[in-house]
């Protein structure tokens, strides 16, 4: 051999789509029944209502800085709908409220977290969800280890971990996919490519044409899916889950979507988003698309939509009321659960803090 050749770059792949923008389905047999679609729509609507109400409260100073799911509802709910909450685990980032709710996390806990209340960290014993992650991509190694541990102990639960295009630039992304490929961990890396990492566009994160095409470099499979297509996201994730459950190892799912709103309530996207880039995504709205599909089958109408909207508003109002009425935390909250077995000097500090608080 006197010649060398560069490793061939994979051909670009179009995102997998099932449900067109106008609500027509590309296949005869839908991957979700009408009842399942309505159920998914309920979670999508629930988070949209939550985002609206929480944003409004944030503007009034009654809620903390948080990140809305708006525009990504099909991506999050489509992925979650492929999971069995009884044995599968979600290792979240912070923009996946409807997935966490479907898995059993009370909305009020999520609200309390963003209201700054320590009880917001509580995850009920039977809910298979890890705490929200703020340090981007740091959850990925943990998801791999959790998946590894479940399979080592003979279970067939799988783990899905959510993160974004920005987080895919972190070292933890590389280390995690590399290890997961080696040990065939039953984990789904669900990358929501929403176009933005705060103000940094996807094009500034990586020269790779797609983020999914990195998967073969780790000896694992990658797939690109239209993230605003509930049906397609569900099918892709369901197949990745089935593969992982059967011992086939990890999958990198790149869900192409668009962050319709700001990064969070402290962000101002008008400083960096070109309106012409955002405009096409209005028509691609994931909730509208699902509604069009159901309407096309005479399974949905204005009154059903109104009823769902009201039902979601009642549920969100209830959760926000519970959160507001939760008694304020005391200084003890600073100390509780730092250690299972706390050092003596920490116990002494707790006594001092508690005493000082009583004086205050």
């Amino acid at each position, binding site marked *: 051999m006197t010649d060398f050749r560069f490793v061939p770059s994979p051909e670009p792949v179009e995102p997998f789509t099932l449900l067109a923008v106008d609500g027509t389905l590309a296949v005869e047999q839908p991957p979700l029944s009408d009842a399942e679609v309505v159920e998914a729509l309920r979670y999508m609507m629930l988070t949209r209502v939550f985002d609206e109400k929480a944003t409004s409260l944030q503007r009034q100073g009654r809620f903390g800085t948080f990140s809305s799911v708006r525009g990504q509802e099909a991506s999050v709910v489509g992925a979650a709908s492929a999971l069995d909450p009884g044995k599968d685990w979600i290792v979240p980032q912070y923009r996946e409220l409807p997935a966490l709710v479907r898995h059993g996390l009370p909305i009020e806990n999520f609200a309390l977290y963003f209201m700054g209340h320590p009880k917001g960290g509580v995850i009920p*014993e039977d809910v298979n969800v890890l*705490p929200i992650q703020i340090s981007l991509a740091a959850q990925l190694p943990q998801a791999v280890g959790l998946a590894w541990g479940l399979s080592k102990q003979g279970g067939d639960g799988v783990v899905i971990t959510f993160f974004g295009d920005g987080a895919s630039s972190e*070292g933890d992304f590389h280390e995690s996919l590399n290890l997961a490929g080696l040990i065939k961990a039953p984990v789904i890396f669900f990358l929501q490519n929403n176009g933005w990492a705060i103000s940094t566009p996807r094009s500034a994160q990586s020269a790779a044409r797609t983020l999914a095409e990195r998967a073969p470099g780790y000896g694992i499979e990658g797939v690109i899916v239209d993230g605003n297509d509930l049906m397609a996201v569900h099918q892709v994730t369901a197949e990745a889950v089935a593969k992982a459950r059967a011992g086939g190892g990890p999958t990198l799912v790149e869900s192409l979507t668009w962050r319709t709103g700001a990064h969070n309530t402290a962000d101002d996207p008008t400083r960096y988003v070109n309106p012409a880039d955002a405009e096409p995504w209005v028509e691609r709205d994931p909730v509208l698309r699902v509604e069009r599909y159901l309407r096309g089958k005479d399974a949905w109408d204005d009154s059903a939509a109104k009823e769902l909207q009201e039902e979601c508003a009642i549920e969100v109002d209830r959760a926000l009321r519970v959160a507001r009425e939760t008694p304020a935390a005391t200084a003890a909250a600073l100390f509780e659960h730092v250690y299972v077995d706390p050092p*003596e000097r920490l116990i002494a500090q707790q006594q001092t803090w508690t005493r000082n608080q009583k004086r205050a």
Partner: protein
Amino acid sequence: MTTKTMVESIRECLRQEMEVDDSVLVIGEDVGALGGVFRATDGLLAQFGSDRVVDMPLAEGVIVGSGIGLALSGMRPVIEIQFLGFGHQAFHQIGQQAARIHFRSQGRFRVPLVIRAPFGGGVRTPELHSDAFEAFYTHTPGLKVVAPSTAYDAKGLLAEAIASDDPVLYLEPLKGYRLTRDEVPDERYRVPFGKARVAREGTDVTLIAWSAAAVTAERAAEALEESGLSVEVVDLRSLVPLDVDTISASVAKTGRAAVLHEAPLTGGFGAEVVATIQQECFYSLQAPIHRITSPDTPYPLAGVEDMYIPDVDRVVAELSELMAVAP
């Protein structure tokens, strides 16, 4: 009872704990066929198989991060970070993740994770293998930090660390692995955290140290005894939790104190010990408390490391100076 080096007692502890608890597993770089670069895991692969003794890719972040996940799934991983100097690549997983998940989840999750890491100098390693970075980790709420100096303590403290439901950083002195042989029971036992060891009783001055420096402290005390100075050596064993009572009792008795460590002066754990002594024992003190440490410089190349790490001569000189202060 047999005499063992520290690395032998660590290996014996790992083997015995793995024998009694199937959820204990060892992961790290070169821990399998090689048995670890210091042979601390020698023989474990043959006995327990590759499901429980796992050679990992060279990626400290995911070694610790996946260890957290394993712990969350119900296992008790013992991680080997080949040298503490490489631990920076896992720093976020240790400090922000492992140490906080119990707190962040309000008690729902526990992370019974042990991170073993050789640290400290004196054995002519290449660059970046020898730093004593314990203070980065003692400043991390939620984490426990243990640093044995003897083979006996190494076995008992490691057993305690594996049994702990809190994450533990278990620091092993490179220089101490084969420095001495101690009487070490063959059966399992535990040494509790937060109980310092009075390594040598004395009446004139208290010298506080941990890990390999505790051995230097004992040798300096022996040397000073010949010149008529009685030095009490306190080996902390664990830095978090800190045994304030043993330190205070000793300084109240002697009235003078020095702390000895390999790490640089500024912000070293010695500062924490000194601050604790002045608060607890202010009225017993007859002289300023000394810190006998390395300078505030990076760990040097091996050819000059003997000038860097405090040795017996420096300890003798500093303590003599400390004793010269009139009460």
